[in-house]
Structures are given as structure tokens and as C-alpha cells.
């Protein structure tokens, strides 16, 4: 099949083809960049957190009477929670992982540290902390009960030992084995690294150092006390109301909320999730509209060329030749749109990366988009083309 006659027929009636090509170009630019953004968001949401998210819930309490016996209450609560059938482990914790709220401080690999230090999002947990979070220690050990600081009001006192993620360890000691090393606080107080966590996400999911997590052996205190409870698989939802009902009985305090860790995680990622959903809807609508445009043009062309098609059929063209004609015509139009679309897509990608600090568009997505639009164009043309192929040769003789 020769492209020449198709091209010359196209050039004779350019307007419709140009309109479709422009649509294809814009569609390619929007779709490719949107998909790229969506994939990044999905990857971000799906990153492993290192925490046993599915089986953890939080109990947030607040006491409000003078001389509330927080020390005894914490001891009782922890004993109750850790003894509850179905609970793997429970700990007090100063902030909720993945929730967007937390504390951070700087750690130094030498005393009197000047300059940056390594920022660490720290969590204060008891000796059950590792088990409660469900995180994996790749080397070293957890905290012993003896080292856990008892509940205490405000203090600048540092801790004797800490557990850090591998991310933190690498930043503090890029060249040597970090286990057993001493790190220093801003006030040059020393602490020994006794354990290395494989991987754990901290509080701020949007932070580029979300994996910079440090555990301190401290019992969270005193006014607002939160417990992080990890259950056996399947027991979480059953235990939540039971725990709430029990803790609510203590006088002088309220249970602010009992929520799954997933609740906080979902909330933290809601912007990313919504962006992905919104863009997906836009993509679907856009492709539908572009296909409609292609379909409309092909239908229009078939209608206005009925007589010519009949003539071609009468002088020996097969039905598949007719189908092929329209498919090739569409391919030419789509391709010209794609050429413009590639330039546009790269321009949009550049704009996004310059102004919105998104990574530069990955070219694989462009290649995928090109093939995708070729397919969409061919599919949208197929129906009108087959209708064209059913034009009987006799049409050629009917009028004139």
C-alpha cells in the first residue's frame, strides 16, 4: 500500500486533520506528565515503612488533675496492655510515627559538634518499643528495662544509649562500623549506639530524610501520654474498644482517641492520594475526548468519501484495503500530532521540574505514551473504517 495518495488526500483537506493532531499533541503532553506524577505518588505511598502498620493502634490520653499519679498509671497501663491476650507488645511513645507530628534533634559524631550534625526524628520508647513497632534490628540489641528512663518532667538530660536506623548510621559514620560508637547531642552529651534498625519511617512522610529515625530509651510523660500497641494479626479491631473501655475508667484523665496507625498514615498521604486520583480522572476523560475527536473525524471522512470508496471498491480494492486506508490515514495524523506532542510533553515536563521541583520527565513514559496514543488512534478509527469497507461498489454507479 502506498502512502502517497493518502497523504495527498489528507493535504487537500487539512483542517480536520490538523485539529485532531493538535488534540493528540496536547493529550500526549498532559497524559505523559500526569502518569509520571501518578507513578511517583503511588511509589511514595507504597514505600515500605519498616513498621508493622497493619497491626498497630494508638491510644492517646490526657490527664487533667493536679498531682495526677502519672508514674503509677503508666506502669499499670503498660502492664495491662502487655498482658492483654492478642497484644504482641505495647510501649509509651512521644509521637505517632507517620502522623506528621513529632520531634527531631541533631546528632553529632564528635563532641562539641559544629555545623550541621545529622538530623534525627526521635521516638521515646520503652524496652518493648522494638517489638511494638514491629521493626527489624539488623545488628545489636534492643533496650534493656534497666536503661529506660522513668517518667520525668522536662529535662535536658540525654540518654545513655540509642538505637538508630541504618540511614542515620551511614550519615554519622560513613566509613566505619557504627554499632558501639558514641554519638553526641547538641550539648555534647554522649550516647552509645546499641542497635541498628534496618529501616523505619518517622513522623514526616514528606521529609526527604523520613528514614532518619532514632529511638531513645525514655518513658513518655506526663500530661499527654500515648501508647502504641501492636496486636497479633486480626486482633487489632477487636482489641481497640476493649482497651478504650478499660483506660477510660481511670479518673483524672480522658482518652482523646483510639485510632489505627493506618488512619494517621492515610491522613499523611491524603494529598498524594488525591492528586493521583484527580489526575487519573483527568487522564481518562482526556483520552475519551481525544478518541471522540479521532472517531468524529474518521466518521466525517468516511461519509464525505462514500462515493470515492465505492469507486475504489468497484475497480478492485478489497475491503481490507479500505480499512487499511483509513488506519494509515489516522496513523499519519496521529504521528504528526505525536511529533508535536513529544516536544510539548518535554516542555511541560521541563516546566514542572523547574517550577515545582518535580524530577525531570523520564523518557520511558514518553515512549509509552507514544505507543499508547498510536493504539488509541487506531482503535478509534477502526469502527468508521470498517463501516467504510462495507460501502458496496454499486454506490459508485448510483448518482451522477
Amino acid at each position: 500500500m502506498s502512502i502517497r495518495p493518502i497523504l495527498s488526500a489528507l493535504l487537500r483537506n487539512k483542517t480536520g486533520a490538523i485539529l485532531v493532531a493538535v488534540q493528540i499533541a496536547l493529550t500526549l503532553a498532559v497524559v505523559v506528565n500526569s502518569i509520571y506524577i501518578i507513578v511517583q505518588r503511588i511509589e511514595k505511598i507504597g514505600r515500605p515503612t519498616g513498621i508493622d502498620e497493619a497491626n498497630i493502634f494508638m491510644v492517646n490520653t490526657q490527664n487533667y488533675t493536679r498531682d495526677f499519679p502519672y508514674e503509677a498509671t503508666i506502669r499499670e497501663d503498660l502492664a495491662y496492655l502487655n498482658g492483654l491476650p492478642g497484644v504482641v507488645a505495647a510501649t509509651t511513645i512521644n509521637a505517632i510515627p507517620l502522623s506528621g507530628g513529632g520531634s527531631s534533634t541533631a546528632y553529632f559524631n564528635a563532641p562539641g559538634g559544629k555545623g550541621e550534625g545529622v538530623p534525627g526524628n526521635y521516638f521515646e520508647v520503652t524496652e518493648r518499643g522494638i517489638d511494638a513497632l514491629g521493626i527489624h534490628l539488623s545488628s545489636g540489641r534492643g533496650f534493656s528495662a534497666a536503661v529506660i528512663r522513668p517518667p520525668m518532667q522536662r529535662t535536658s538530660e540525654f540518654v545513655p544509649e540509642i538505637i538508630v536506623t541504618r540511614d542515620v548510621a551511614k550519615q554519622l559514620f560513613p566509613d566505619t562500623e557504627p554499632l558501639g560508637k558514641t554519638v553526641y547531642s547538641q550539648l555534647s552529651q554522649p550516647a552509645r549506639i546499641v542497635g541498628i534498625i534496618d529501616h523505619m519511617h518517622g513522623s514526616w512522610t514528606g521529609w526527604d530524610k523520613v528514614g532518619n529515625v532514632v529511638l531513645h530509651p525514655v518513658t513518655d510523660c506526663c500530661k499527654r501520654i500515648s501508647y502504641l500497641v501492636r496486636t497479633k494479626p486480626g486482633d487489632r479491631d477487636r482489641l481497640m474498644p476493649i482497651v478504650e473501655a478499660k483506660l477510660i475508667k481511670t479518673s483524672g484523665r480522658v482518652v482523646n482517641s483510639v485510632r489505627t496507625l493506618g488512619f494517621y498514615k492515610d491522613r499523611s498521604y491524603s494529598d498524594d492520594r488525591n492528586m493521583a486520583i484527580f489526575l487519573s480522572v483527568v487522564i481518562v476523560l482526556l483520552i475519551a475526548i481525544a478518541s471522540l475527536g479521532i472517531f468524529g473525524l474518521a466518521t466525517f471522512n468516511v461519509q464525505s468519501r462514500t462515493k470515492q470508496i465505492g469507486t475504489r471498491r468497484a475497480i478492485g480494492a478489497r475491503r481490507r484495503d479500505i480499512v487499511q486506508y483509513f488506519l494509515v490515514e489516522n496513523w499519519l495524523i496521529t504521528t504528526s500530532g505525536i511529533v508535536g506532542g513529544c516536544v510539548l510533553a518535554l516542555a511541560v515536563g521541563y516546566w514542572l521540574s523547574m517550577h515545582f521541583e518535580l524530577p525531570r520527565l523520564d523518557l520511558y513514559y514518553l515512549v509509552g505514551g507514544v505507543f499508547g496514543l498510536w493504539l488509541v488512534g487506531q482503535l478509534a478509527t477502526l469502527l468508521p473504517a470498517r463501516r467504510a469497507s462495507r460501502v458496496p461498489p454499486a454506490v459508485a454507479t448510483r448518482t451522477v
Partner: protein
Amino acid sequence: MLSYNLHLACASYRRNPTLTGLVAGAIAIGIAVCTITLTLYHALSNNPIWWKNDQLYAVTIDSWDPERPDNDKHPERPPPQLTYKDALALLKSDIPVHKVAMFKSTRVLDAGKADAKVKRMDTRVTTGDFFRAFDVPFLYGGPWNAAADQSPEPVVVISKEVNEKTFGGINSVGRTVRLDDRDFRIVGVLDTWRPAPTYYDLNNGSLENPEDIYIPFAWGEALELESAGNTNCWKSEQINSFKDFTNSECVWIQFWAEFSSKADHNRFQSWLDGYAKDQKKLGRFPRPLNNHLYNVDEWLAFNEVVTKDNRVLVGLAFMFLAVCVVNTVGLLLAKFLSAASLSGLRRALGASRRDIFQQHLVEVIVLGLAGGLLGLILSALGLWGLRLMFASDFDQYASLTHMDPTMMSAAILLSLLAGIAAGLYPAWRIGRIQPATYLKTQ
């Protein structure tokens, strides 16, 4: 003439309802996508107290680390909050008409009713000027006076919701509520007040609900209250007591000032610089002098309330609308040309090219408006869907997804422009056809 053109347009719509529907549908979808993204953008960039944009300023002092700025990406910006001791010092200035020093805390509310559960409440610890500076509406009573801020007096302002839940909505001024373990006398009950975004404190998101309980600022120190918002510290210093904390370089107090004139604003700026210079002499504020007063618009930009995602969405939505418009051009061309013989006839009977052009432009404008209206309905549906998606996350989302008259007129204007943009070429084209071509075969 217009009515005749409208009549012709109606006849044309009836002749080819499918194509007509497609044109209106394409415009509607484009408008809907644009309107939804613009509504979100508009709501977030909304200044809820625009009438005070020249009077109300967030006050900042660069008290940060000499080694690095508070915000690495924007080193020119001072930290958004003040230290406690600076807030106290600024409260002494008599240049502003209103001075607001505040932070967010939580208190446990006990209304003293046996059947009502004690409950944790978000509480704002603030100077009484809060209500005056931010024009907070009162249902009963009013703000506490300056004396109550000083001593501090056990007075409280409660929200309308709390008043309804604990007192059944009656005028509860003069009654007491228990906050933690202390009685507070109610001096005011707020009316509904939901500024969105919550410009006055953007530490914990921009769509939070305003607090339910308000108590005088001095209670912060008296009760050793900590911030439930955001506390940031840079300096290595011993903090072993609340006293150490209030003396530290940690920033956690939001500070606003309202001025009655531009001159006062300038006077306060130089007063602030003078204060910072004095403190520098005492060895504080190691960074270069960088004290800023931000009006609400600038403050919303400073805190990046409109996110990058919002901007990207608006950009992509307009590209989407462009596709819809181009698509509509094609559809209109097909529609007009399929009825070209009628135009040919009109031309042969004496209608000018302009008449034909006008006839089709009217047809397109009406279609564009119909598409716009349909688009408005679609956007309302889309926003309703968004509200459902977000409802559990933020109570304030309703205000975000609310289409105000500005947005509605913008949507209609947009659809009109889109209709005209799509229709100009097809209408021009149909005006240029040779009548003879279409009369020959009859």
C-alpha cells in the same frame, strides 16, 4: 435579528441533537475540570480577612541559628514564630492598636454536668486582642479586657458549638466551666466563625477548625502550658524547667499586630529593628537583621498554603480545556458543513457573509453557555464527590469545595470564551462557502 438567529440556532440543534450534545458535553467537561481545580486554588488563596490586609500583620524576628537559616529553601525568611521572651517584649509596644500573642494548647473541659463527658478541647491561649484584630464575631458577651490578660483572670471565651453542647445554646456568659482542674468564668460566646484558610495560625495545616476554648495569654506561663502546635529550637542550651523553656531561643508563639495607619506600621518596623539591635548588643540574634511584617496575603504565600500540586493541577486543567476546545472546533466544523447547503441557500437569497457568520456565532455562544451551565452542574457534582472523599479528614473541607459567586461567574465567563474560541473559525469558514456549490445538485 438576534431572535431570528436564536431561532435558527434552535432549528440547528434539533437537526443534529447528537452532535449538539457532544459539543455542549465537550465544553462542559473542560469547564468542569477547570472549575474544580480553580475552586480549590481559589479557596486556598482566599484571604478570609481581606478588608484588613493593610492593617493586620504577622510579626517575625530572625532569631535563628547563625550557621543556617530557619528555612533552607528560603534563607531570606525569618522563622514564622517568636520566642516567648520576644513575644512579651513586643506586647509592651504601644504602637499597634491590637497585639496578639498566642499559641495552641489543649485543655480538658468539664462543664460540671453529670451526663456530659469530660472531653479534651483544642484551646487557644491568647491575648484578648485576638478577637478584636481578627474580627471574631460574638453571639453573647465579648472579649476579655487588658486587665484580664495581665493578672491573668480566670476568664474564658467558648465557641458556639461548645455553648450548644454544654449549655443548650443559651446565653452562658457569667457561668463557669472547668478547664483541667481550674474554674473559668465565661465572658463571651463566639458566633459561627470558620475562616478558611486559618491564616492566623498555619503551623498545623491551613484547614483546621478554629479552637473551641480561648483563655488569656498569661495563663500559659502561670499553668506552664506547652504548645500543642509547633515548637522549634536551634540552640544548644540547658532546658530543665518551664522557666528555662520560656527563657530559651525556642520559637513557639505566633504574634500579630494591627495598625491604624501606614505610618504606625513604619514606626513599629523601626521600633522592632531597634529592639532587635538592642538584643544583638546582649549577644542574641546572631543572624543579620531581618525582621519582617507580613500582611495576610503575604503570610499565606510565606506559609505556602496554595501547594505546588494546586498550581500543577490548574495548569494541566487549562491544557485539558484546550483539548476540549480544539475538539469542539472539529465537531462544529462537521456540524456546520453538514448543513452547508442551508447556508448556501440563505446566501443565494441575499444574506451577507456577515449574516451567516453572525448566525453561527450566536449558535456557538448559546452552545458554549449551555456547556458552561452543564459544566457548573458537573463541577458541583465533582466537588461534592471531593467533599465525600475528604469529609472524614477535615471538617473544614466543606468551605474549600464551596463554589462562591465569583467562581460561578468565572466558570460562565470561561465557557463563553471557550465557546467563542471554538466557534470563530467554523463560523468564519461557513460564511465563506460558495452558494453555487451547494445549489448545483438541488
